[in-house]
């Protein structure tokens, strides 16, 4: 650490101030553009109007229920992808046969736009939560597999050898050495997968309905209720920021040992 703590604090405060200033500036531009009727109010409602709408949907609980449903779907799917992905990634790292079997599937699956599979999932699992959870899991599992696999392969052999010399059994090696060594990389992968989970959930809801943030968003758009459209977009932005901050805090607390 080269900067003194006092300097670090001042720099962080300055950054936050500048962020606030940028946001304020954008809001001012938005409000004045809307007020001066540059575009019809249906296309660009004023910020104050949107804020009022936001207050309304928070008060009557409709936002809360939509948000809860979407987040439930996104996180369940992500958890499923995490569990399967880590398992598969580890197995692939351990066994050349497993790697040979699964690798082509991953190589094809990774670049393909998983959203194209949405109609298949709807066909098989309906338009309620199950199809969306499984689609999210499908979309997120590929980066997790790849990340886990590369992390497991990257574990330095010297670390494994030291563990053996200190009395680690083959069985204990996985849980005591390989897995902890991979935590930072796996966490980084899950961190990237989180926005994918959210996007997939919202998009699936927008296309297929079945409740949730995306469904209401599209519904509002079709009926030209633009304040609601804007309000929902702002909420999605807010949720994204909040989750990112939470993830950041988690990493700082539990992965402090990781070398960058």
């Amino acid at each position: 650490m080269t900067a003194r703590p006092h300097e670090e604090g001042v720099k962080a405060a300055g950054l936050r101030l500048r962020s606030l200033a940028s946001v304020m500036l954008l809001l001012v531009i938005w409000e004045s553009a809307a007020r001066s009727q540059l575009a019809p109010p249906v296309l660009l409602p004023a910020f104050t109007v949107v804020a009022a709408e936001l207050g309304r949907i928070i008060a009557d609980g409709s936002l809360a229920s939509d948000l809860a449903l979407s987040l439930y779907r996104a996180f369940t799917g992500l958890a499923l992808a995490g569990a399967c992905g880590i398992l598969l990634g580890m197995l692939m790292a351990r066994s050349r046969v497993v790697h040979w079997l699964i690798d082509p599937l991953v190589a094809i699956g990774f670049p393909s736009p998983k959203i194209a599979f949405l109609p298949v999932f709807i066909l098989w699992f309906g338009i309620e939560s199950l199809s969306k959870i499984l689609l999210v899991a499908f979309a997120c599992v590929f980066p997790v597999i790849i990340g886990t696999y590369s992390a497991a392969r990257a574990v330095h052999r010297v670390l494994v050898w030291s563990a053996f010399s200190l009395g680690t059994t083959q069985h204990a090696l996985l849980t005591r050495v390989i897995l902890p060594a991979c935590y930072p990389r796996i966490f980084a992968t899950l961190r990237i997968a989180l926005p994918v989970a959210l996007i997939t959930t919202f998009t699936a809801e927008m296309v297929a309905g079945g409740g949730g943030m995306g469904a209401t968003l599209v519904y509002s758009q079709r009926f030209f209720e633009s304040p609601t459209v804007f309000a929902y977009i702002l909420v999605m932005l807010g949720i994204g920021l909040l989750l990112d901050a939470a993830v950041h805090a988690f990493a700082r607390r539990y992965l402090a040992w990781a070398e960058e």
Partner: protein
Amino acid sequence: MRRDPLAHALIRTVPLLLLGMLWQAASSAGLINTAFLPSPATISVALADLLGGGEIGRNIFITLFRAGTGLLLGAVCGIWLGLMMARSLKFRAWVTPIVGGTYSLPKSALIPLFALWFGIGSLTAICAVYLACLLPMTVNTFQGVVSTPKVLTWSAQALGTSERQMLSRIYLRHALPDIFTGLRIALGFSFVLAISSEMIASSSGIGKLVFFYGENGAYDYMFAAIACVIAVAFLCDRAMLAVSGWCLRWHESAANARTA
């Protein structure tokens, strides 16, 4: 015994062929309900029919046009933004909060907004793709330029590189690997956003086509169309890898270019 790349590629397809054969066998034996999952044979027939007619070619072209345009615009603007952020501290200070903010927003949430503004034509899709590609290109370009080691720039200056030449000859060259990483990510995004747009608010494109077949119960055609999407996305990704591999043949990691 030199590793023959062609043989290696062929060996990698074997698990897929095995899977296909297993699928076909299960289908013929009646183990799979073909209403929900047609056999590979049925899908192949539908695929041949699609490829024979002009339908799928036309729609794929439309989707590729939207994705490609958005990707190109997003890449150009993103590289410029990333460069500016790396070179000017003031610019960086103002833009970073905005960039950080948009990271948290699922870009597909803006599709209904763009549909509200621009209707269901290509502009909606191109805008969504553009915004989605902007961020990874900006961030990666910034990272690539900012990480240029001082010893590199000092050596260049000592060897008589002018200020203007520094940009193109040194900074951009050093950032090239990161730029290509960003391009690969943006390519994936471009497909996802283009198809999402088409599913939510469009009357053409491969996304719309897949959905159309689904809604009309022509599931073998639906699967065939999805297979086309997967194939196109895979080939584009491989093409991108090949291009970046050639452009980066000087880079240390060039030996690893063959992986995934």
